[in-house]
């Protein structure tokens, strides 16, 4: 793109959204060069923040007319580099934060994409209902971003991921056309475009509004902290609980490294710092079922070798146990200036083995790997804290992460359970899927965005597309977006 063209686009954007919400200078774009995974930095050509649905439509239509690529962004809390704009327009949707409708009778709410997950639930609380998916970044992340990533969270074990809780959406396609997908009343007709859109990581356009399914709050919740002297005992307890038929609302694992970091933070939750691992286990439902299931959980933990199982006796204690878990990732900042986190998923029976392998990989690379993850569904989050100023360390971290990913793929797992592919996991896609499957994914994208203008260069390596294979030279501009800076 030549300099004058960009300037005139900026001028037209200013006419739509106002001067304050078109950013072009280096200093003011710095804040938008990373998402929640700060190992990557990409400078947008400019950033534009529409303040209403109509402004958003006008902006996207203008970008379509000029053939300009763009990257949608919510709160920038993603952990895959998915919301980075490499010399293309960054389209921030965080100002669209109206809750448009709450319909308790029909158990649904319609929100704009910039509504913050926790803000929606705060608003729903007095009705005794909630929006179930609860990513750890719920205090900051947006529903639009959750839809783009098909976000998960601790309670997805029982309640399901974002896909299972979205009824309909109004989508603005990259060419500027507005389209309704899904059915607010829960009906199903035609191809499941809503299902395809959820988790499309901003590559299929942007949602202008989203209708979510509401769930009634369970009458009772019990949360327990089980404390183990050996990691293998904790994973054995996990398997025993899953096999028992009890479906906990959440079943979270934290290893000693994570426990120590949390206990040093202001979110110290009273975790035992001498434990090799702890499990945070929650069951919910009726008073009777919760007590009965917690009893099953408690005895399975004890049989598996737990030192103690402590059930929170009041809401404050319960929230404290959860705060420690939810803020664990952020708390890793205490260890070293930089942090990488992975998101692989493995079959649950492989947990013990994979954790041992991860430990060995860390050792052989001279790194400490902290594990905090959703044990109940086998969704691992190995974290490595490191100093990016040390090139040798950076290389070892990169090698260790690749080895961990390969181990998970070999175990029959996946490379991402809830964070998305984005930029970070792009290199692993070809290890996980064969060429025809990747080409079919490109075809799906092409139906929504044939020019790959919405979040270019993400999710599927561009060389996997049929068009690329047929005429590589023709796709040269698209390739630039995937190149590391």
């Amino acid at each position, binding site marked *: 793109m030549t300099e004058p063209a960009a300037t005139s686009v900026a001028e037209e954007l200013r006419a739509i959204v106002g001067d304050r919400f078109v950013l072009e200078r280096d200093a003011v774009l710095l804040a938008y060069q990373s998402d929640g995974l700060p190992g990557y930095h990409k400078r947008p050509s400019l950033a534009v923040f529409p303040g209403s649905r109509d402004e958003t439509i006008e902006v996207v239509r203008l970008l379509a007319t000029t053939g300009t690529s763009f990257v949608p962004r919510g709160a920038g809390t993603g952990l895959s580099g998915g919301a980075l704009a490499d010399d293309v327009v960054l389209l921030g949707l965080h100002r669209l934060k109206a809750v448009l409708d709450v319909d308790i009778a029909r158990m649904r709410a319609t929100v704009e994409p910039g509504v913050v997950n926790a803000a929606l639930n705060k608003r729903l609380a007095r009705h005794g209902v909630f929006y179930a998916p609860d990513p750890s970044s719920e205090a900051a992340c947006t529903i639009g971003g959750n839809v783009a990533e098909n976000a998960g969270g601790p309670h997805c074990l029982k309640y399901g991921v974002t896909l299972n809780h979205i009824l309909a959406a109004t989508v603005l396609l990259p060419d500027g056309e507005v389209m309704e997908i899904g059915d607010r009343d829960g009906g199903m007709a035609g191809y499941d*475009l809503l299902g395809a859109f959820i988790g499309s990581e901003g590559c299929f356009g942007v949602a202008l509004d989203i209708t979510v399914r509401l769930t009634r709050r369970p009458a009772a919740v019990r949360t327990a902290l089980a404390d183990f002297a050996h990691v293998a005992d904790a994973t054995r307890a996990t398997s025993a609980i*899953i096999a028992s038929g*009890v479906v906990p609302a959440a079943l979270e694992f934290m290893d000693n490294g994570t426990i120590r970091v949390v206990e040093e933070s202001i979110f110290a939750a009273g975790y035992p710092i001498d434990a090799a691992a702890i499990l945070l286990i929650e069951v919910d439902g009726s008073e009777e079922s919760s007590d009965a299931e917690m009893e099953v959980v408690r005895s399975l933990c004890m049989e598996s070798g737990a030192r103690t199982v402590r059930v929170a006796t009041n809401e404050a204690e319960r929230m404290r146990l959860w705060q420690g878990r939810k803020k664990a990732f952020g708390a890793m900042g205490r260890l070293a200036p930089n942090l990488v986190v992975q998101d692989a998923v493995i079959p649950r029976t492989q947990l013990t083995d994979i954790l041992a392998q991860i430990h060995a990989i860390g050792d052989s690379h001279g790194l400490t790997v902290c594990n905090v993850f959703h044990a109940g569904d086998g*969704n691992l989050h190995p974290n490595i804290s490191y100093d990016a100023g040390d090139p040798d360390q950076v290389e070892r971290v990169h090698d260790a992460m690749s080895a961990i990913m390969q181990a998970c793929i070999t175990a029959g797992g996946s490379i991402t359970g809830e964070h998305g592919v984005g930029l970070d996991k792009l290199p692993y896609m070809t290890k*996980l899927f064969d060429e025809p*499957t990747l080409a*079919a994914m490109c075809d799906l994208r092409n139906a*929504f965005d044939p020019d790959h203008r919405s979040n270019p260069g993400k999710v599927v390596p561009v060389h996997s597309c049929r068009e690329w294979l047929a005429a590589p030279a023709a796709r040269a501009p698209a390739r630039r977006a995937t190149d590391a800076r």
Partner: protein
Amino acid sequence: MHGDTEVAAAIREAGAAGIPLRIVGRGTWLNAGASVAAETTLSLRDDAGIRAYAPDDLTVTARAGTTLRELTETLARRDQWVALDPEGDPDGTLGATVATCSYGAAAALFGTPRDQVLGMTVVLGNGDIIRPGGKVVKNVAGFDLIRLMIGAWGTLGVITEITLRVRSRAMRGDSIAHMRRQMPASHGYREPVIVNAKISNALRQRFDPFGILNPGIMRDVE
């Protein structure tokens, strides 16, 4: 038909010759109100059987021609089940249930087939064999071809194998009663109609370039 390569060969051959195919499981079920404009049948009834069952991982993988009866009986031996209970004959196939997204009363608590499928093998209209998803319960790697295929009535590809989320029968009803969702009906299926014509037609052209997969079954309403 037996196995992915045989299905793929048949589809490639039909594509080259421009012969439309009627894709069926056991052919015992509804015709969804529109007849398929095809003389030749591609039946998956013999491509049956459970390929992998990991009770402790709560996953099962079966060929599309497997009957719901066989699946139910196998899982029941470990006191487990899959939340698929479409109306009609239990000898209907897993492939048909998923391809039509047919659901029954269980959907109010557990969702429709869309919420049960973890991975699948699909043969596309150009003969490509694709394997989206996997065998883990949580997976957001790549664009969601699985949801695209569920309820597409075979018009975007022929599903040959499916990996499902398995549940324990021991789960207590009163621990999940609050999760009950409003469904439009106690049983049903995804309506085979073309909505959002621009995207839907683009998908058909890309996934069924020769127009041979169940032509005519998707009604135009727009």
